[in-house]
C-alpha cells in the first residue's frame, strides 16, 4: 500500500477537541504508545535547544538579529536551535544568556522528590533570609524593610501550609503551634521572638 492510497478530503473541519500540549494531543488522539515515546525521546534530546529558541522568541528577536548579536550567521542560529542538545556548547549557552540577559540554569541527574525539593528550597530560603537579617543591621530603614518582608514571608508560608492542609483527608483535625524563642546568646542582639499560630479548618 503506497501513500496514494491514503485518502484526503478536499476540505476538512476542526474536531473541536482542544489540548494543552502536543503530548496531550497525541495521547488524546490515540497515537500508538511507541510513537508518543519516540516523540518524548526526541523532545528530551532537544530540551535545551528548544529552551534557547523559546527565550530568543520571548525577547522578540529573529534568528538573523540573534546571529548579528552573537556574531554568527542566521543559518548557524537555525542549526543550533533545531539541533540536539549534545551538539550545544557551554559557549553557546553563555552567549544566549548574555545577549538575552536571561539567567540560564542547567540541571542534570534524577529529579528531586517532593520532600527533597521542599527541604532544599527551605534551606535556600533560610540562607537568603539570614543574609537579609545581616543586611538589616546596617541601618534603621533597612531593618524596617527587612522586618516587614519577614512578616509578609511568615504570613505567606503559613497560608501555603494552611492551603495544603485543606487538601488533607484529616483537614478538620489539624492544629499546630509555632513557638520561637531566641537563644540566650542571640537574646543579647535581638529581642526575644515569640509567635503562635493555630490553623483552624
Amino acid at each position, binding site marked *: 500500500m503506497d*501513500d496514494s492510497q491514503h485518502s484526503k478530503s478536499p*476540505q476538512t473541519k476542526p474536531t473541536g477537541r482542544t489540548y494543552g500540549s502536543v503530548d496531550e494531543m497525541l495521547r488524546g488522539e490515540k497515537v500508538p504508545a511507541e510513537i508518543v515515546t519516540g516523540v518524548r525521546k526526541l523532545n528530551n534530546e532537544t530540551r535545551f535547544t528548544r529552551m534557547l529558541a523559546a527565550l530568543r522568541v520571548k525577547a522578540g528577536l529573529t534568528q538573523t538579529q540573534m546571529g548579528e548579536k552573537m556574531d554568527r550567521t542566521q543559518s548557524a542560529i537555525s542549526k543550533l536551535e*533545531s539541533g540536539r542538545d549534545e551538539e550545544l556548547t557551554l559557549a553557546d549557552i553563555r552567549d544566549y544568556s548574555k545577549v538575552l540577559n536571561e539567567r540560564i540554569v542547567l540541571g542534570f541527574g534524577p529529579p528531586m522528590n517532593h520532600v527533597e525539593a521542599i527541604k532544599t528550597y527551605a534551606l535556600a530560603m533560610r540562607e537568603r533570609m539570614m543574609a537579609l537579617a545581616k543586611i538589616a543591621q546596617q541601618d534603621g530603614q533597612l531593618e524596617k524593610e527587612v522586618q516587614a518582608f519577614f512578616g509578609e514571608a511568615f504570613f505567606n508560608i503559613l497560608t501555603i501550609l494552611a492551603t495544603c492542609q485543606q487538601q488533607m483527608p484529616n483537614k478538620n483535625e489539624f492544629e499546630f503551634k509555632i513557638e520561637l524563642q531566641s537563644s540566650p546568646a542571640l537574646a543579647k542582639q535581638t529581642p526575644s521572638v515569640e509567635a503562635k499560630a493555630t490553623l483552624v479548618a
Partner: protein
Amino acid sequence: MSVWKVMPSEQYVKDQTWYAKKHPRELEAVANNLGRYHAQLNRAKNALCVQAGYIHPEGKGVVALDQKGGGTSLQETRLYVYADDSTKVLHIITIGNKNTQDSDIKLAQAYTESVRTPR
C-alpha cells in the same frame, strides 16, 4: 505569556493514523517540531514572531512544519498548521509529503479561511 491550545482537524486525525502505521519516524519528527513551535508560540508576542528553519509560511496564515531535526533518511514531510492569534488556538490541519504538497496547501488555506475569526 499566553497559553495556546492545540486543536486537530478531522483530516489530521486520519493522517495521523496513516503516518503512525506507514511513516512513524516522520510523524515523530514533525510532532517534535510541532512541540517546538507550540513552546515558541507560548513565549511569543504573536504567531508572526515565531520564525525558524523548520517553519515555512505557505500563505493565508498557513505554516508548514518540516521533519528537520528528527534524524537521517526521513521522507520530506510537512505538517500544516494555523496559529489563530485572536483565539490562541493552534489548528493542526493535515500532514503530507512532496507529492501532496499542492493539494495540502489548498486544503490548509481553505480550512484557515473557514476558522479564521473575523476582525
